[in-house]
């Protein structure tokens, strides 16, 4: 095997086709998109050199800070929510549901495999205010409260988006973290218990430190996914009310494809890429220190 992999021709032959496909469908469009940032126009009117105009437009665009802020807020809230709820569920599976765990795990995991648009429609109906009253508002009114128009105010719309995305993905993180928790040796837990450690002490001093690597992996998965979120928000709120729940991805899509401004759309895409790069660097630096020390 070593001799095969040591032969440059063999390596080139084995990797060549895959690398070619990857380059054509990934790298070329990315570089192409980077090139667009210096042009203005569309496929219909043609492209003209714009120099740094698209970048200076970024600074003047009032919609950009709003989309950027929403992206960051969404990424932080959903990441914390997904990983925290997933971790709590994993602890529940390990400590309290050892016997009936598989049924519960299956049920909690089920939303992960549902189509995003179907889940979005479900939540739209669930939180509906008009023309029909959805179950949530019906319950609020049944308890004497006043119905809430969830999709007409930015705060409430964000709340529904957050609830939906956490509900949709908590099963995935629960399974991921559960696998990590199972790796903790039983002997260590038993020894700590015999030394008089209670449940909280066990979790704080043994479970959390030993499951830190898988927790960090979950955070990386989650933050990467949430920074690029598009489909769930598009299907649930369409970016509304107004543009209050528009992340950078949706703004980029609309700018490029609905407004036909490929140059500026690519510049927004580049902004998102830089943001992802910064977050990745921060996470990896932090984890190298923490996990390495742990």
């Amino acid at each position, binding site marked *: *095997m*070593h*001799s*095969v992999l040591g*032969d440059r021709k*063999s390596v080139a*032959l084995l990797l*060549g*086709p895959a690398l*070619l*496909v990857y380059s*054509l469908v990934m790298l070329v469009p990315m570089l192409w998109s980077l090139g667009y940032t210096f042009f203005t126009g*569309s*496929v*219909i*009117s*043609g492209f003209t050199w714009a120099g740094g105009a698209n970048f200076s437009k970024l600074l003047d665009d*009032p*919609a950009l800070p709003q989309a950027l802020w929403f992206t960051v807020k969404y990424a932080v809230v959903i990441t914390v929510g997904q990983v925290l709820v997933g971790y709590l569920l994993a602890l529940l599976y390990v400590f309290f549901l050892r016997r009936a765990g598989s049924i519960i795990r299956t049920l909690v995991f089920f939303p992960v495999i549902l189509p995003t648009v179907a889940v979005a429609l479900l939540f739209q109906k669930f939180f*509906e*205010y*008009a*023309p029909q009253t959805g179950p949530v508002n019906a319950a609020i009114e049944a308890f004497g409260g006043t119905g809430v*128009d969830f*999709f*007409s*105010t930015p705060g409430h719309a964000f709340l529904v988006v957050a609830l939906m995305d956490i509900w949709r993905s908590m099963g995935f993180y629960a399974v991921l973290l559960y696998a990590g928790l199972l790796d903790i040796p039983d002997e260590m837990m038993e020894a700590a218990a015999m030394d008089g450690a209670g449940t909280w002490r066990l979790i704080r001093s043994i479970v959390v430190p030993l499951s830190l690597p898988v927790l960090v992996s979950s955070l990386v998965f989650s933050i990467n996914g949430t920074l690029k979120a598009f489909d769930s928000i598009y299907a649930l709120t*369409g*970016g*509304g*009310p*107004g*543009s209050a729940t528009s992340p950078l991805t949706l703004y980029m899509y*609309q*700018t490029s*494809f*609905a*407004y*036909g*401004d490929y140059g500026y759309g690519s510049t927004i895409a580049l902004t998102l890429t830089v943001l992802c790069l910064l977050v990745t660097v921060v996470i990896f630096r932090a984890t190298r220190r923490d996990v390495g020390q742990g």
Partner: protein
Amino acid sequence: MAPISPRTHRPARVAAAISALALVVSTAACGGGDDTASGGSSAKNFSFLSINENTTIPATLTTLSQKECATQNAAQPLEIKKQAQASLDQQLQLLAGQGALPQTFIAANAPSLTSQLADSGSVLDTAAISQGVLPAASSTITSLYDGKQLVLPTELNIEGIWYNKKLLADNGITTPPATWDDLVAAFAKLHAAGVQPISQAGKGGDGWGVTRWVGNYILRQQGPDALKKVADGSAQLTDPQYVAAADAIAALGKAGYFGKSPTSIDYATALNTFLTGKAAFIYMGSWALSDFNDESKNKIGADNVGFLKFPTVTGGTGTADQMPANVGTALAISKKAYENDENTRAWVTCIVDNYGTVALRDSSQITGFATDGSVEVPALTKQIQTEIAGVRTSVLWFEAYFSAKATTVSQGNGGLLAGGQLTGEKFMQTVTANLG
């Protein structure tokens, strides 16, 4: 493991060659298929790109293909593809970029995009073949497309406020309001009586129904050129008189006259609310006549539907006879297909000659095409035909001169204005920031 032998190189080379070939084939398959003719050859089908939201045009073209245009259909069978209206502009841009526009398609939501397509040589200027187009439709089209006749008028609409005669009478409103103040007083009276005064959609892009109120208020207050002045740069939407118009509509929203949560109401729901007698007024175009005349949809009865010209505003220079008019969902023709394909030319000529009569006969749709006068129409349609015939000055809608981006932003924020969640000033600032 032994070093790789020359014999094992051959299968690897073959595999690599197959991979490369597969890649070339798959890449080639990604290219857009162009069904249109070039260089004088005829396309296999007469392709029409429609929108899901419109049923009249596909139905009328299908009828034409079976009867009046059967000969043309035999030479080039009609093929209908559908697309969501919200993503029509996006699809047209992609198809035009690939040179794959169908022979005919619904004109872009943003008139500026259709103009762009014409400038790039993708859309036909139909002036030379518009002998069967009514002068009123021609003038509306040319004012929209900077003097060019870029679409065929499969609709010719006037817009206004439709009302439920019985609901008004039951609540002591015996004469239809003629001024803005009268109209607002009627809204207040109905609201106090527990009747929803206005049914209007404000969900996402359906917010155009609300922004029509803003545009018309501006035109009544400042005259028919008010929106053109914004396009020319001689006025701004953030000027006080423009903001006052948006504020007037925001005030209706604040008072709850648009009903519960306009941002949750789509076009079909808003129309249904009016047609089932749950709201007294709706701003709508005459394209809805087919629904008004449809007993299965209209539960209040066609006799019970009244049409009101958008009222005058006190101290304003605009008059009620300056009618909001448009060609609604119109057809654009691919220039390349028309010029290179004899069968496509025959189809287009047949549409121009017969569409008006068939659409009026089968769907009660008033179009911008001449009809043969043989069609008996319902009373409400007759009334609107008379109104259209009497139009001397037509005016365009709020977003008519806007870019695609400003149009989306304006209509997307219409629901918030109708819900009283956005002030007129904030609305106008948001739209202005996206005018480009």
